[in-house]
């Protein structure tokens, strides 16, 4: 099996079939530019050196002038036409590689990708969503992107693919991973506070390993957390809390802090069993039902003082088992 390889010092290792066409085009324009830039700069420096004004002339009181400028229409035409030919070639190289990359292979496996502030979720069929993208090597995929809030952009540098996830629309990326290894999904369209933390891991796996992943996916694993320990209900909840990026708004362990300042969302530790004041002036008793509702439909009851931050709805992100685990975890936070 091919291992990911750095094809050049300028580009990340190539891990999908979409990389080769883009890399070819990239190196083509790169060397074209190097030659062109070196020529322009060299000729300029040469002329400066050769036609440098004699310093003494300014003291002699006699103006040293440049040579009269002839009119050379042929030259003007030449340096209009030659670049035109070049850019036709450049356009062609870029366009044919692009068309190759936007066409999905027959029978590609479909994966739904949900983008929201500030996490990615991947659905392989069957309802459960994973925060990581697990792929089988050498299998064609078609990813269907959508966004639940603002515009995000799905970007895997190792695959050379990028596509915006626009709310209210579906968009697609297609590729076949060609090398086993890990990569990242970045969000490339600015989307607010934690834009730069909107990352997901990509695992390109051997078929057997991938089967294993699909079989265990959505169920409570044997081990969880870092370092991995035996997975209790609460421990599982804790790792889901991290996976689903809840901590980006509620702080690690729901402590309401992020890098020293208050997190965008309220503190979760210690709220269970207490009364919570709401934005509309009423209060609510924090029990399993309220926490469940807060996760699935956060806008139903807004915590006092948090009208300006939106928690995205997580309806559909969790299986029932997973939701139970997260609730158990929040319950356990002191």
């Amino acid at each position, binding site marked *: 099996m091919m291992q990911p390889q750095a094809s050049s010092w300028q580009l990340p290792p190539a891990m999908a079939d979409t990389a080769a066409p883009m890399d070819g085009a990239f190196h083509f324009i790169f060397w074209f530019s190097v030659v062109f830039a070196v020529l322009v700069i060299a000729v300029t420096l040469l002329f400066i050196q050769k036609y440098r004004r004699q310093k003494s002339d300014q003291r002699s009181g006699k103006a040293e*002038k440049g040579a009269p400028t002839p009119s050379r229409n042929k030259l003007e035409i030449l340096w209009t036409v030659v670049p035109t030919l070049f*850019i036709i070639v450049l356009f062609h190289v870029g366009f044919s590689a692009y068309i190759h990359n936007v066409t999905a292979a027959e029978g590609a496996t479909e994966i739904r990708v949900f983008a929201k502030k500030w996490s990615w979720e991947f659905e392989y069929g069957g309802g459960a969503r994973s925060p990581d993208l697990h792929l089988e090597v050498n299998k064609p995929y078609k990813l269907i992107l959508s966004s639940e809030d603002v515009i995000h952009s799905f970007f895997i540098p190792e695959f050379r693919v990028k596509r915006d996830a626009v709310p*209210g629309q579906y968009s697609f990326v297609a590729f076949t991973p060609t090398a086993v290894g890990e990569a990242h999904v970045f969000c490339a369209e600015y989307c607010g506070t934690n834009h730069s933390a909107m990352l997901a891991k990509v695992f390109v796996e051997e078929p057997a390993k991938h089967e294993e992943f699909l079989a265990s996916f959505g169920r409570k694993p044997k081990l969880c957390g870092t370092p991995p320990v035996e997975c209790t209900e609460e421990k599982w909840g804790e790792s889901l809390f991290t996976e689903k990026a809840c901590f980006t708004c509620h702080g690690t362990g729901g402590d309401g802090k992020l890098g020293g300042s208050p997190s965008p969302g309220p503190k979760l530790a210690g709220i269970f069993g207490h009364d919570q004041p709401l934005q509309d002036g009423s209060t609510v008793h924090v029990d399993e039902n309220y926490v469940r509702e807060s996760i699935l439909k956060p806008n139903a009851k807004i915590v006092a003082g948090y009208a*300006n931050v939106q928690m995205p709805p997580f309806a559909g992100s969790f299986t029932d088992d997973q939701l139970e685990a997260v609730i158990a975890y929040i319950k356990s936070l002191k």
Partner: protein
Amino acid sequence: MAAITTAPGYHEEVDPNASYLENKKGLLSWLFTLDHKRIGVMYLLSVIIAFTLGGLFALLMRAELLTRGRTLMDADTYNKMFSLHGVIMVFLFLIPAIPASLGNILLPIQLGAKDVAFPRLNLLSYYIYVFGACFGIYSMIHGGVDTGWTFYTPYSTSDPAHGGVGSSSAVIPMTLAVLVLGFSSVLTGVNFIATIHKMRAPGLSWRRLSLFAWSLYATAIIQILATPVLAITFLLLTLERFLGIGIFDPRLGGDPVLYQHFFWFYSHPAVYIMIVPGMGIVSDLIATFSRREPFGYMAIAMSSIALALLGFLVWGHHLFVAGMSEYATMVFSALTFLVAIPSGVKVFNWIATLYKGSISLQSPMLWALSFIFLFTIGGLTGLFLGMLAVDVHLHDTYFVVAHFHYVMVGGTVMGFFGGLHYWWPKFTGRLYDEKWAVAGWFFVFVGFNVTFLVQFLLGSRGMPRRYYDYLPQYESLHQISTVGSWILGLGFLILAAMFVRSLFSGKPAPRNPWGSAAYEWLTPSPPPTFNFAKDPVFERGPYDYQVATDEELYDGFDDPLFPEKGVAEGEARA
């Protein structure tokens, strides 16, 4: 064509021989002046303040990126920093920088006119600019914006206070600020077009127009045609935010990508509003410091117009991954490449002008040559982004950041500083210290390249832009870039000190310190209020070095490169 008298009541009590700085004194005489040079100087001061502020935000951003995680500020503050950096640099600096300041000061002189066609409109446009800037400051005080300078919907339109998913309500005053600034830009454009058509002195045919004036003409066309689209877009944005009319927000049935089409329909041509005047300055500088008529004068002039027009056809290249049909991407990619042709024509003609010139590497020329180098790199990396497959990988990464900084800083800022150095003795009447000027240029040039060259690599390796934090593999390149920003900052600091010193203790400038044949050097430094002591009649072109007499080139000549020798020689000659 007789010189047209400007607004009634304007000509009285003006001493035709006293310099524009001396005719009338006091703050009010500046605030209510109709003199294009004084208005230009006020613009100049304003855009330099904006540049300083935008630059400080940039330094803070780079400092934050020095290490992974939190270095100085939290993510929200960082996001506001880059947004304000962008908004200020684009709308308060780059767009007005050259036309409204140096253009205002120089255009009428280069035309042999007493003033612009509409002096009152000129002053109005300045105050609209100030008013727009006030809106911007208001927005900054009230929380600032974190949308980037592009204000993409729905992030910018859905107010979290009303159940939206986006940014704070300070977005509206900021977009209104930009809208107001647009009016100022349009008025300047109208004024310049009328001035160039109607105010040229006798003997100044279109073929004798300076290339700087040609570039201002091309720029004015874009300003007038493109800016209204931005105004309409921001009005729609405001309507959507206040009245909930669904235009861009999908929750209201709108289309967020439509906003991007509207926005770039203005903002791509705006790139040419920023760069074309810089190209004009460079054309003038190369002619003066090679003492040679520009090679392919008409080709350079017409390529400015071509850029202005082509600029309207390529906005789609900002949306290659946003969801356009394959057919549209193909057309926009092809049209984008066309822009390379007039840009190339300019570069080739500049270099051909150097051939057999009499080249002097005084400070303004250093900026002009830097422009050629950096703009070439900026232009070539633009070709990367025009190639569809390559753009998919590079879009919204640091590669794009580096590319447009090579065009906007390597182009516009280099042109602006080149022009500032070149015309400084003319409009302040003072010389500056050439050694410090060269030192400042050196640090700016080196610092700029250290800062931005590595960003190409960051981008091609996959580092997305507008990121507060990054993965470990990008750390060392980010650090080099940050160190570069300090060198760059130091360069500008040296220049600031150098110019301030020149104002207070610079030697008086002679009429023509560079030995240029251009018209503005035929009149005293600083020029009288009506630019020339008596209405000029031009018998030769501004680049006619073969016809220009030694006297025209050398009157009061004092070589700033060798001040001591120059003065001694000057005395000897006298």
